[in-house]
């Protein structure tokens, strides 16, 4: 399989170097790590918001570093958790004395390394809290997770936590709004093709040309079922119905939606999904307050998409529409 890389071993390092070269005034890389932080971290008087995980999900995570979102992001190897010592360096670099909130996606490696990093940071008297995003309604336990996986809904959590911290709220308040977002968001994805990791160089799983995998994870972990290829509308119906069933919302509820590309899907197709998504939520009597469409949480070059729906109230809406200025998202 052809890839625009020099060496599988240097993919993460070279990606970070290139990113730094694109945003020299905004980003800073901590020495001898794969950690990126705001150039001006730690921001005085502000709770730090950090995230991280395996690489391969770009623009997640470092693409969301900036005003109103993340202060730091740690990049592990492709689909591999960053180590706890690097996470600890990130936490310490982003602590202004107001404490740090870690936004973690629910994968065993990520959760354990963030917990261990939190203990290391506490030994240095940093106040650390951790929230775990588990928005994927597809499977309860999976290859890398006990409980539900954390996927694209994480971006909304970054956004509200980042906005709350930018207001000058304390760590407890920032943690509260992050958990509020987590409690109200649900996602489900589909793959048309497998992703190809740099070190393997071939598809992670076999998916025949005429079949799709419903409920796919963002690392190519198996989903709930494999079916014959369907139309965009049929796929959107399936994903959305599962998401809405999980959320169980009242008629008239205001929502934010996201159609997220997995990395190898053209924008045109994402908009086609969004067209149908809005029809379905309308049929359910839901009121779309905002609709995001784009590549936010990818899986390398996988063709596919995920659909996220979140119930919002005035507080979450204020935070979601508060200013943000990052490489991948400007509000």
């Amino acid at each position: 399989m052809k890839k625009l890389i020099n060496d599988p071993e240097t993919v993460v390092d070279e990606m970070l170097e290139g990113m730094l070269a694109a945003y020299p005034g905004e980003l800073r890389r901590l020495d001898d790590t794969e950690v990126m932080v705001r150039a001006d971290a730690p921001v005085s008087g502000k709770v730090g918001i950090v995230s991280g995980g395996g690489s391969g999900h770009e623009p997640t995570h470092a693409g969301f570093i900036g005003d109103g979102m993340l202060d730091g992001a740690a990049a592990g190897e492709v689909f591999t958790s960053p180590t706890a010592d690097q996470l600890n360096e990130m936490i310490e670099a982003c602590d202004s004395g107001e404490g740090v909130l870690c936004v973690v996606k629910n994968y065993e490696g990520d959760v354990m390394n963030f917990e261990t990093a939190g203990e290391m940071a506490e030994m240095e008297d940093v106040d650390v809290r951790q929230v775990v995003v588990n928005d994927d309604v597809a499977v309860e336990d999976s290859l890398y997770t006990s409980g539900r996986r954390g996927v694209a809904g994480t971006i909304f959590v970054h956004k509200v936590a980042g906005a709350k911290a930018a207001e000058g709220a304390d760590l407890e308040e920032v943690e509260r709004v992050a958990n509020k977002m987590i409690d109200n968001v649900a996602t489900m994805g589909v793959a048309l093709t497998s992703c190809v990791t740099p070190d393997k160089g071939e598809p992670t799983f076999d998916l025949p040309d005429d079949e799709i995998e419903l409920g796919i994870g963002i690392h190519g972990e198996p989903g709930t079922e494999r079916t014959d290829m369907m139309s965009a509308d049929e796929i959107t119906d399936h994903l959305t119905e599962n998401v809405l069933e999980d959320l169980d919302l009242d008629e008239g509820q205001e929502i934010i939606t996201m159609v997220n590309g997995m990395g190898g899907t053209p924008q045109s197709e994402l908009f086609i999904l969004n067209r149908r998504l809005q029809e379905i939520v309308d049929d359910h009597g839901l009121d779309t307050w905002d609709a995001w469409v784009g590549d936010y949480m990818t899986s390398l070059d996988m063709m596919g998409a995920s659909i996220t729906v979140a119930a919002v109230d005035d507080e979450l809406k204020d935070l979601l529409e508060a200013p943000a200025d990052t490489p991948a998202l400007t509000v």
Partner: protein
Amino acid sequence: MVDEATQREAIRAAAEAVADRLEDEKTHLTDLDSAIGDADHGSNLARGFRAAADAVVDDDESTPQELVKTIGVTLISEVGGASGPLYGGSIMSASATLDDGLTAESSVAFAEAYLEKVKDRGDAQLGAKTMVDALTPAVHTFKKSIEVDELPPLTALAKATAAAERGVEYTVPLRAQKGRASFLGWRSVGHQDPGATSTWFIMQELLDVADDYLDGEVDVDASSPTIPEETPDEEES
């Protein structure tokens, strides 16, 4: 209690012995892991403990507690994945019990803290086919031997190591409920857990090193520790 310089020497020797042993057992552990995991347990742990041994080999300044903590922190950064936090994070965290250095009492506290941290971090209970299945009988046996039976530390450690071995055997017929092996469901039955196995190997090396540093006790064979006769809970009259 042995003096601080001797404790330091023993800790470094233990790190070295564990690194050597895991290097020797790398293929064995990786074979166990490839049956029910992702085939990297042997190489990751061997690399991590080698780095940990290197990190303390020339350290004549740190306290025993600091040395143990350094070993934990090095494992965290070198092993990665879930094993970094489970092995290294738990050592780092449990090192807090060694304020007064290595004594029989603090060793029990360390062992208990380590077990609790592994269970908490991995969210694993006894019988889930994990390292907890080797650690739990080992730690319980160690504690009882020291605190209830008042056996000499070396004898207690020998009994604990033998208990760990039984724990490893106990994992074979279990269905995995944690970690990547759990995804295999019933297919995991009949395979020995690699984490429990490496835990037992580590204990054998600790026993071997302890045998070198604790004089005046019975000689033990670390590869097959003799299980002394069970001591009755109540004194015989």
